[in-house]
């Protein structure tokens, strides 16, 4: 029954107001303003995503792709990619969608070597940095001169942890965090 529902699923790419989309030489970058996640879809993933128009089934999307893979394998690849899209909010969510496999698991399942995985869909995701995070990113335990340098906002002044970023003022006891 679940398999039937999946077969009838017509995924629709979420190209709504909260997403910014840029294409660069066949790849697609999607910035989700809600949550500030940025996703890079490689060429195979981008082509599948662009075919998610809300009218095509998974099978029809697979048929629409140019690929050396046999039809059944192609559909498996598409199914996995679309499950990923659903998890990441890149298509309208489907609760029936199975958990997506990693690329390595998928390659093993369809019996292709490491070199051939470059032809499989790939999505790399990051969280967009905050301004302070992008500019100074001194993590706890690293040397510092100013509290403003630290991610935590605390450059310790006490004798033991002097001039290292610490999680907070509680960890940096005694003399405490530098006041500047």
């Amino acid at each position: 029954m679940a398999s039937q529902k999946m077969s009838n699923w017509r995924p629709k790419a979420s190209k709504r107001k909260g997403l910014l989309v840029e294409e660069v030489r066949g790849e697609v970058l999607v910035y989700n303003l809600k949550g500030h996640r940025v996703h890079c879809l490689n060429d195979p993933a981008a082509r599948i995503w662009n075919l998610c128009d809300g009218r095509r089934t998974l099978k029809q999307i697979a048929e629409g792709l140019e690929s050396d893979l046999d039809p059944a394998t192609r559909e498996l690849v598409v199914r996995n990619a679309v499950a990923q899209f659903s998890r990441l909010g890149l298509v309208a969510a489907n609760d029936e969608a199975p958990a997506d496999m990693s690329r390595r698991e998928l390659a093993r399942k369809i019996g292709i070597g490491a070199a051939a995985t470059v032809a499989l869909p790939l999505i790399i995701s990051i969280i967009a940095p905050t301004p302070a995070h992008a500019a100074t990113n001194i993590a706890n335990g690293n040397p510092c001169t100013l509290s403003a340098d630290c991610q935590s906002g605390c450059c310790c002044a006490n004798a033991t942890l002097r001039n290292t970023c610490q999680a907070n003022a509680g960890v940096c006891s005694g003399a405490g965090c530098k006041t500047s």
Partner: protein
Amino acid sequence: MQKINRLVWAEGACFESYGVRIGIRVSQPGAIERLVPFLPPQWKTIEPPRELDALYSWVVGGDRRSNVRTFDILYRGVGRIARTLKPEELFEIFEAKLRITVALLSRRFVFIHAAAVGWRGKAVIMPGRSFTGKSTLVEALVRAGAEYFSDEYAVLDKNGRVHPFAKPISVRAPVTLKQEPLGVKDIGGTTAEHPMRVGAILATRYRERAKSRFREASPGQGMLDLVANAVAARWAPSRVLTATRKASVGAIVLRGSRGEAREAAERLLAILERA
């Protein structure tokens, strides 16, 4: 704001850097001159505009009477950002905060936390946070003949070209790890004067005893590396995406760990020569 405005300000000035309009006011005559060395690159004095992007106010401390010292206090807008008995600490904070302000608020440019050099007429951008070894690698590249753009920000215009942000290279002192300025001319290098198109993006970090190995990646991954280090990524995502796409589209993208800076610089330049 009214509270701060009630203080007596001895002098003030306005300047612009990368299109960002900054005001400074100080409580002591002549104090503004002491702040000039800490202004960001490409600054120029302007007439007071109708609206400022940021206002910094310095209540100058020092010895008032023989046994009394007062704090130096620095405000950005209404918020206090420094209170110290050591003016040099205040200058450090002023410089750091001002750079982030310019990087964040510039409407004409997109600032990427990255090192950048020029090689054979094209820019090489090395995005990365603090402590990834950017300054050391930049020093090695400049010594090898690359033109210096910056060891802190790659400044992209709306067409994806890189502009200089030429502050002195910040080299970390071996024991304290405190940053010390190193002049580009002092190491026989030259500073870029004009913007350049991006020829390469290298995402790397120093690993002790590693051999430098750079593998090629896609333009999309290069763009992602730039966005991951864009100061205004959340502030102006649309502008950031446009500029980083234009920067990445024609660039070679390389990724991988690097070892010693000189070896890494040689390897990188050899790759660029073959491209």
